[in-house]
């Protein structure tokens, strides 16, 4: 039963990164200077994200619910030791969601108000993506310490440092890359398509570069990412495949085949995440006192059973509706 829940957590995280990530990235892209395409880009992002963003946001809620029902000690440890980054993340989520909706539904489209919404949406997208990365990195540094005596040790040290910061940058790059690739397919005008294709390629380089920086920082801290990566053939395999796909991506971008470009970009990011899962699982997080595994943190069986039933029955409703949503809006 725990395996089913781990599958749902992993799948939700993956879908959140791929779908929600593209939304975050779209916000970041709006911050980058683009004199010529600014208007067209904003309109396109509004149109592409509008129908799906509420649904994309739900994957995060799903993870939170699975954690607090199924793995309560993981949830409470995260919310206590990482209190500050979680608060920062929440602030970003609130501002982002509101700014995006307000921009679209403000009845009076004043120039100043629209500018403020756009600025808030962009900055909070960047901010939230950074903190997602910082929180992800904090999970496997082993600095979470429920028995700490000082404020710094207990609430700052777990997430403070070069490695989490660079992981934040890495996540921002990944999200912006996904957004660019997604928007190539959404754009109808060839000039705009070309623009996003170029952005996508540059950001793909940046993903690789930022990834290398994260890896070097993980070497300084001797996190499992560095210590165990080369011993784990699955993780290595995922990274090699993700890198090889780089060439395929190039090829299809030059061919303007938007479907394959999307699939490959999604595949690359999925492989990166999968490589991380292989290093991380079945631990939920590493503390100073040792790893906290999902198996050790699991709730009683009666609870897990109810959770699995809710997830399976829920899937019967959610997936068909989700496909219908995509069918209505994403087929031309």
């Amino acid at each position, binding site marked *: 039963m725990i395996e089913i829940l781990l599958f749902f957590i992993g799948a939700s995280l993956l879908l959140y990164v791929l779908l929600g990530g593209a939304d975050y990235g779209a916000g970041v892209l709006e911050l980058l200077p683009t004199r010529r395409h600014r208007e067209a880009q904003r309109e396109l992002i509004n149109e592409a994200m509008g129908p799906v963003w*509420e649904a994309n946001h739900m994957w995060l809620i*799903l993870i939170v619910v699975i954690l607090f029902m199924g793995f309560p000690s993981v949830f409470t440890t995260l919310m206590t030791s990482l209190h500050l980054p979680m608060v920062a993340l929440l602030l970003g989520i609130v501002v982002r969601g509101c700014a995006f909706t307000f921009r679209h*539904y403000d*009845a009076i489209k004043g120039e100043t108000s629209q500018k403020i919404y756009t600025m808030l949406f962009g900055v909070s997208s960047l901010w939230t993506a950074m903190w997602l990365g910082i929180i992800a990195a904090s999970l496997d540094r082993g600095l979470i310490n429920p028995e700490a005596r000082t404020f710094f040790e207990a609430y700052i040290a777990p997430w403070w440092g070069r490695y989490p910061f660079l992981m934040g940058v890495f996540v921002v790059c990944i999200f912006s890359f996904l957004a660019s690739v997604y928007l190539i397919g959404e754009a109808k005008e060839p000039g705009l398509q070309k623009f996003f294709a170029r952005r996508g390629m540059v950001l793909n380089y940046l993903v690789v570069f930022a990834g290398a920086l994260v890896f070097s920082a993980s070497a300084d801290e001797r996190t499992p990412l560095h210590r165990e990566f080369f011993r784990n053939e699955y993780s290595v395999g995922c990274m090699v495949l993700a890198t090889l796909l780089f060439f395929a991506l190039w090829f299809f971008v030059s061919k303007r085949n938007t479907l394959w470009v999307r699939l490959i970009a999604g595949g690359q990011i999925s492989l990166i995440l999968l490589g991380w899962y292989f290093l991380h699982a079945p631990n939920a997080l590493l503390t100073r006192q040792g790893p906290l595994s999902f198996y050790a943190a699991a709730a009683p069986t009666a609870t897990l059973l109810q959770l699995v039933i809710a997830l399976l029955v829920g899937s019967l409703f959610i997936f068909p509706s*989700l496909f219908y949503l995509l069918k209505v809006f994403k087929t031309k």
Partner: protein
Amino acid sequence: MDDLLAARSTMGFSLGFHIIFASIGMTMPFFMSAAHFLYLKKKNPEHLELTQMWMKGVAILFAVGAVSGTVLSFELGLLWPGFMKYAGPIIGMPFSWEGTAFFLEAIAIGLFLYGWKRMKPWVHWSTGLVVGLSGFASGIFVVAANSWMNAPAGFDWVNGEALNINPVQAMFNKAWLHQSLHMQLAALQAVGFAVGGIHAFLYLKGKARALHLSAIKIAMSFGAVAAILQPFAGHFAAQRVAELQPAKLAAMEGHFKTSTQAPLYLGGIPDVNAQEMKYGIELPGLLSFLAFNDFAAEVKGLDQFPKELWPPLVITHISFQIMVAIGTLLAFVGVLFFVFIRKNNFPSWFLKFLVACIPLGFIAIEAGWIVTEVGRQPWIIYGIMKTSEAVTPVPGMKYHFYLFLFLYLFLGFITVWLLRRQILAAQRKFET
């Protein structure tokens, strides 16, 4: 401000803020669907106009409701890790169903908002209805989780550990039915009166009268039915509270001494030191009747409980009085509404009165939640765990409090400002 008070206050205004948007998000789609239904049936362009006007309001308020709900799901752990460590596995079940319902709602709202002309008209209409139905369902689930804190069930508490957990029993605890019924009716009532009142205001301004009149009829029909049913639901709830949480009932009523033929007080302020009610109008025997359907029944007073287990009396009592007073008034207005709709003529004094009613339902909802939550103190899980045992060990919670208070005040301000702009823009449209 100490950390416990800061955490409680943060939770208090987070919930208080979210409840308003959640109430609108789970009931207004029904009004919208009703207008949409009338349009599809009668092809009257006014109904289309109305549907789209309400739709924009739903979109804005839904977004604020969704993000403030996200904040709450994190705050359960950020503020109350000691509670969630035990409660998560026990009451996670309604939350997992709520998650499912909310997911459906998020998908349906995307389809409805952006799906005009992309789907067949009736299919499109049904997505709007799904927004309302799934929202309504998630409201019931969330209240079921809360009711468990008032009437804990589905586990054995042995030496500070929860054993033999049964999530199904926990969800269908003794308080879930009366709390859900009371809350869902309150949402329909508050939103119906608020929307009806806003359109009454616009109607009185004299533009697009036919549109505003049908808006008043639709919104107030929901609101008035709920308002008329609510006193019955409230009576049912009070009886359950008398059985499940006698200390809360005593605090609500300012009932200090256990007695038969217990009196009901209208108004009044409980004096904690003198242990008596001051300035209230006493109705002998009525509390016994309301609580147990018997004028002579014995009602437990606060003297049955050690003083450190008393809920804050003044807040609980006054909030309860406010809720009951507003509920009574709105039920009366609801009856009047049906009188006038039968005559098919709303006198202008009645419409002006509806305008005055705009905030009342929401004030009653807030007051009701204060009764539920403050009336449970000092317990977070009634009779099992104290709120002080559940609070986070993170120090400096007052900064957390200030930060979120500022954020929510700002958001509330923007939302009101945006809705005002919606109304102004709609008015301007009718000028030409």
